[in-house]
């Protein structure tokens, strides 16, 4: 593995270290560290895993083991600048969630889990976003879109740059 080019910036490292006093173990900083790196790089490449492991006094395999369990952290290439989750669980499905996801995939020309060629959007399905009263709903980055119709979804897709 290459050790030459460091991926974690000083800023990321400082941010990760801020979490140390909160927990009695360094390993507990794994998820916060993965989030910090993923928010900056939109993925967590293997080299970042190695560097996080060093910071947390862990074997890289331990960090990788955790990372691979969660659906949050792409590794091979960055997710889109917007990451949109379309809910497919029961309350949303009853109000057209499955059709909405299909419609959006058709419009964007990608399958769930994929990123558009221009890197603007990753579309994913979600299991219950906890906003079932607004079914069907979409979480796009930090923003929840409520009771979304196909027409609104088309418009929304146009806003992802």
């Amino acid at each position: 593995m290459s050790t030459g080019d460091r991926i974690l910036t000083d800023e990321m490292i400082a941010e990760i270290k801020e979490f140390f006093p909160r927990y009695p173990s360094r390993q507990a900083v794994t998820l916060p560290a993965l989030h910090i790196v993923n928010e900056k790089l939109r993925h967590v490449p293997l080299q970042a895993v190695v560097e996080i492991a060093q910071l947390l006094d862990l074997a890289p395999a331990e960090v990788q083991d955790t990372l691979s369990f969660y659906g949050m952290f792409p590794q091979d290439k960055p997710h889109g600048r917007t990451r949109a989750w379309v809910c497919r669980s029961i309350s949303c499905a009853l109000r057209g969630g499955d059709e909405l996801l299909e419609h959006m995939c058709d419009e964007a020309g990608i399958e769930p889990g994929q990123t558009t060629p221009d890197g603007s959007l990753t579309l994913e399905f979600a299991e219950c976003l906890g906003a079932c009263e607004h079914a069907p709903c979409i979480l796009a980055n930090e923003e929840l879109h409520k009771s979304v119709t196909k027409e609104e979804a088309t418009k929304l897709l146009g806003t992802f740059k």
Partner: protein
Amino acid sequence: MEPVLLANIHRSDSHTLSGYESTGGYNAYRKVLAEMSPDDLKDLVKESGLRGRGGAGFPTGLKWTFLPKNHPGPIYFCLNADESEPGTFNNRILMEEDPHQVLEGLALSCYATGAETAYFYIRYEYPLCYKRLTQALEEMYAKGLLGKNILGSGFNLDIYLHRGAAAYICGEETGLIESLEGKRAWPRIKPPFPAIEGAFRKPTVVNNVETAACVPHIVNRGVAWFRSMGVQPDPNNPRDPGSFGPKLYCLSGHIEKPGCYEAPLGITVNELIQEYGGGMLDGRRPKAAIPGGISMGLLTADEFDCPLDFSGPGRYGCLGLGTAAVVVMDETVSMVDYLHNSARFFAHESCGQCTPCREGTSWSLKMLDRIQAGRGRLIDLDLLLEIGDTIGIIPGTTICGLADGAAWPLKNAIRKFRGEFEDFIKQTNPDGYAETSPVPALHEIHGH
């Protein structure tokens, strides 16, 4: 009833410290720190009969007493804000609209249990909650409501937000603890229970957000008030402690006014739909409802007189009250589609540690995929029932309750709607439903 937990959510400043304090917020905290010992508070919560709102309904005060006596510490408190059970969003409303109410409840719970560090484990998909809670915590520290020697009482408390990473199993209490420790969220074999050996191998309490939010109201309004609402213990069942207090019900699906409503424990599904939800969407006839999150199983429309207290849904063949999240389906819904959706959820979310859960959830999904694609056989229904009857048997074959949650939709849908499944199979696979027909592989159906 007059809402208590939701009393202030319609105010524009309900999420700020000044808004919260202007309606009596933190009075309970101030009173307890000045006048009550941790044991006094523990006893008060015990007497109130408060039961956990996170799904299992375990008596909260009793859970707190399982912590070892005179432990040198540290003791940890984990607030479970992972809320991923499909249909459920009451915790989100509380955290978004009234975060200080939740934090006051958490701080009181920490005081009662002797925890000086609390981890607020919040699912990643709740960015607005995270933002509001971050602000609320800053306000609390600035006001001296957290930190060292709080309000001169000698009590110390730090609360840290910890974000999850999109996995349902992080809501299971020991899965949550493993995830907090930086590992995959694999539930632990119990015992030891978290009260003895939890986060970082120390005694730990895990409670739900709504459970914590009830605590300040019990302090302010008293045990008699709390017990005046709900359902008395069943005299024929010595193990039923009753269902007391207000409860947040999440109502979604084919409802005119989906939303989160506060009502006493014991309200019926019908009352909830009619009095709160504005009736069925477009006036259509109901067909079925999930009584408390997708894990709990299914009620038929004939069973909508089911009371939503901790023992109600169990009497109607469901797993229990769960999160009291009611999802209503009208007569246009295909039970095959419903069950497929449920099976897909559990197959996706099983953590994979236990063979019955891992294999049973994915096997049932494969069968339902095939049935939905028009290649079902009648014998599949018995096979699905067999899976349902064998994957989740608490306690016994699996480490956590997810497998049970996967089993009840299977059992209920096929037992309560068997005719519909049979008709679907006969209509979509008229030539091939003989029991001897070979089972096609999935790629033969989907063509890939």
